[in-house]
């Protein structure tokens, strides 16, 4: 136990060659590769190491052209990724993901992650949008936990990596426009800490915590996007938030990931029914010629179908659709999902007897920090990887691509950061940490508003007005709601206690979440067309004039928006 020191004027100071922010799949991989490259590494996470974000929660699959199930080549995976991205992928990043994916999955295999096997080879499942079975997984619904555990074991065995949990990075420290470390809040003691580093890697994951219904952990309010923006880096494709069509809605299911129904559908062919108990998928599906036909709706079409059924008054009682497995024999359900069936029973769910209710939930962010193929942002010394990065998946992501992206981009960012550190680039200065330290010191007790309640308001505004189906009026309403909430929380943090202060933590989260919410709503308003995960009820259909990416940046405190032509050409491997 560390008791709070009375003297907070001089914060704890740590130094390393490379600072990695966020210990999910991307951050852990980055730390391992940076250490392999000879760098001393600090790996910091606001939660426990390897447990705070999406990686540990993932239950499904990881896509790579391993060619174990059927012959495959990374270029087929690349073609599918570009098709899903609807013309907006950064081809260098997409190519890197697809080309390096197999190597990373084999490395994980050698590290004994336990990919499911069949007849001696790694089993690869078919998932929508992929032209062939390409998705590895760990049974039963254990992909994320197995991946996290494997990487944590590697971290344990590696030397030169210092892991620090409960450390929330508040801002990147800048000296002459270069990243030279970061300022952090150590939540348990309420003390600030400064971290000097020659290179900094943002691996903070996604932003789906901005939405009312989501699959996020409490650490997924989009910190990394806000850190990058304030440091002077650019964001790309921020309007593209992926909604997972069949998130669990009712009855209340505890102890299980809300997106768990997808593998059930793959394996057993669950049926989507409306309140009339009629199947409605076929009404909306455009049959994907490359798919084998068992799964007819892509994610965006399924989200559309359920939303439209609810709007037409044919929703389930909790406002979604029914998902039914009543046609599947009980023994088959048990065979496919073993112990998971008992966990469902503990929640009062018997799939053979009754349907569950599902609805679209915010699940993944295609957009993110703009990087080149070395994972470098426009800010010298600042790198990014994993879901925090935008571009590889364009306007929509194939299932299974996100974990591969975390591995591949994480490894690449770690290597790049180690190389930069070798050049001895960034130099720390205490001045660089001053703005963030001043911010933390300005925290004061206040009775209202309750930041936990403000967060709920923001999530409602985002869900209602910046959800999967958008209009000019809704987006304008959201942008002014965000501005109002910003005014409500003001410029100086709220505090309630010395140690482990959730009020301060929420205020700092809101500072980031409001900036990030704006960075989603503003390009969504500008994009007057429908493409991939961005659907405008007032601008139906794709508009060729919009085959461009939008870039968000900060100029002073103003958010700026510009367009660029999508980056083509493959990455140098």
């Amino acid at each position: 136990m560390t008791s709070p020191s009375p003297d907070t004027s001089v914060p704890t100071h740590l130094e390393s060659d490379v600072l990695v922010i966020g210990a999910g799949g991307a951050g852990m991989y980055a730390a391992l590769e940076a250490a392999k490259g000879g760098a001393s590494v600090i790996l910091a996470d606001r939660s426990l190491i390897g447990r705070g974000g999406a990686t540990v929660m993932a239950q499904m699959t990881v896509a790579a052209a391993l060619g174990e199930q059927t012959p495959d080549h990374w270029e087929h995976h690349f073609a599918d990724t570009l098709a899903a991205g609807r013309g907006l992928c950064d081809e260098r990043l997409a190519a890197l993901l697809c080309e390096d994916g197999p190597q990373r999955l084999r490395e994980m295999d050698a590290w004994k992650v336990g990919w499911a096997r069949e007849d001696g080879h790694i089993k690869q499942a078919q998932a929508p949008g992929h032209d062939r079975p390409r998705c590895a997984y760990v049974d039963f619904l254990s992909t994320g936990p197995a991946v996290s555990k494997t990487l944590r074991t590697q971290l344990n065995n590696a030397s030169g990596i210092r892991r620090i949990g409960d450390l929330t990075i508040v801002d990147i420290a800048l000296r002459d426009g270069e990243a030279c470390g970061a300022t952090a809040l150590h939540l348990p003691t309420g003390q600030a800490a400064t971290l000097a580093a020659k290179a900094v890697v943002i691996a903070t994951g996604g932003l789906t915590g901005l939405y009312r219904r989501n699959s996020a952990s409490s650490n997924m309010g989009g910190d990394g996007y806000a850190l990058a923006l304030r440091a002077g880096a650019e964001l790309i494709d921020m309007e593209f938030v992926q909604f997972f069509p069949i998130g669990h809605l009712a009855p209340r299911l505890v102890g299980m990931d809300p997106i768990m129904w997808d593998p059930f559908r793959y394996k057993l062919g669950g049926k989507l029914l409306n309140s009339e108990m009629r199947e409605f998928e076929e009404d909306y599906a455009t049959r994907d010629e490359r798919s084998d036909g068992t799964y007819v709706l892509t994610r965006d079409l399924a989200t559309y179908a359920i939303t439209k059924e609810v709007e037409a008054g044919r929703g389930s009682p909790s406002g979604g659709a029914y998902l039914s497995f009543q046609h599947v024999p009980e023994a088959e359900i048990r065979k496919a999902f073993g112990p998971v069936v008992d966990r469902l029973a503990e929640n009062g769910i018997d799939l053979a007897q009754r349907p569950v209710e599902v609805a679209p939930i915010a699940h993944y962010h295609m957009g993110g920090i703009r990087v080149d193929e070395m994972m470098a942002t426009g800010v010298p010394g600042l790198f990014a990887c994993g879901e925090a990065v935008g571009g590889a998946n364009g306007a929509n992501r194939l299932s299974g691509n996100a974990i591969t992206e975390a591995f591949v981009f994480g490894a690449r960012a770690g290597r790049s950061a180690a190389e930069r550190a070798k050049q001895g680039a960034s130099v720390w200065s205490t001045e660089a940490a001053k703005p963030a330290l001043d911010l933390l010191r300005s925290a004061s007790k206040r009775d209202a508003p309750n930041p936990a309640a403000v967060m709920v308001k923001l999530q409602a505004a985002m869900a209602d007005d910046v959800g999967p189906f958008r209009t000019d009026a809704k987006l304008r309403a959201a942008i002014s709601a965000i501005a109002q909430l910003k005014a409500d929380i003001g410029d100086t943090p709220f505090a309630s206690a010395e140690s482990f202060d959730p009020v301060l933590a929420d205020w700092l989260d809101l500072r980031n979440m409001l900036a990030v919410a704006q960075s989603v709503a503003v390009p969504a308003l500008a994009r007057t067309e429908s493409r991939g995960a961005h659907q405008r009820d007032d601008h139906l259909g794709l508009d060729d004039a919009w085959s461009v990416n939008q870039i968000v940046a900060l100029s002073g405190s103003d958010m700026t928006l510009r367009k660029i032509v999508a980056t083509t050409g493959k990455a140098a491997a």
Partner: protein
Amino acid sequence: MKATLSIQRGAFGETPRQDTFDIPFEHGQSILDGLRAVRRSMDPSLAFRFACINANACKECMMLIDGKVDYACTVRLKEGTTTLAPLPKKALIRDLVTEIAPPGERLVLRP
């Protein structure tokens, strides 16, 4: 219908006090759902750990629930009173929060 949470409060070194919160009872909700509701509508300063909310993957939300060590995100809220306390064998930080990070993964503060 209501559920009552009786929660041990206070930081390390302080004399613990017991605070009681009444929240609407909804069938199927977890203790964690209840704690989050308290923070949203009654006391935002209530400290407890959690990350994953639904998946039972982060393992951060362990506490004493009616005297038994369990996960706040998997134990159901019940009608009547549930008593919550921090883990007894871990160093207390504040309210329901204890030091649970492995020793090798903590910040060592400036002496």
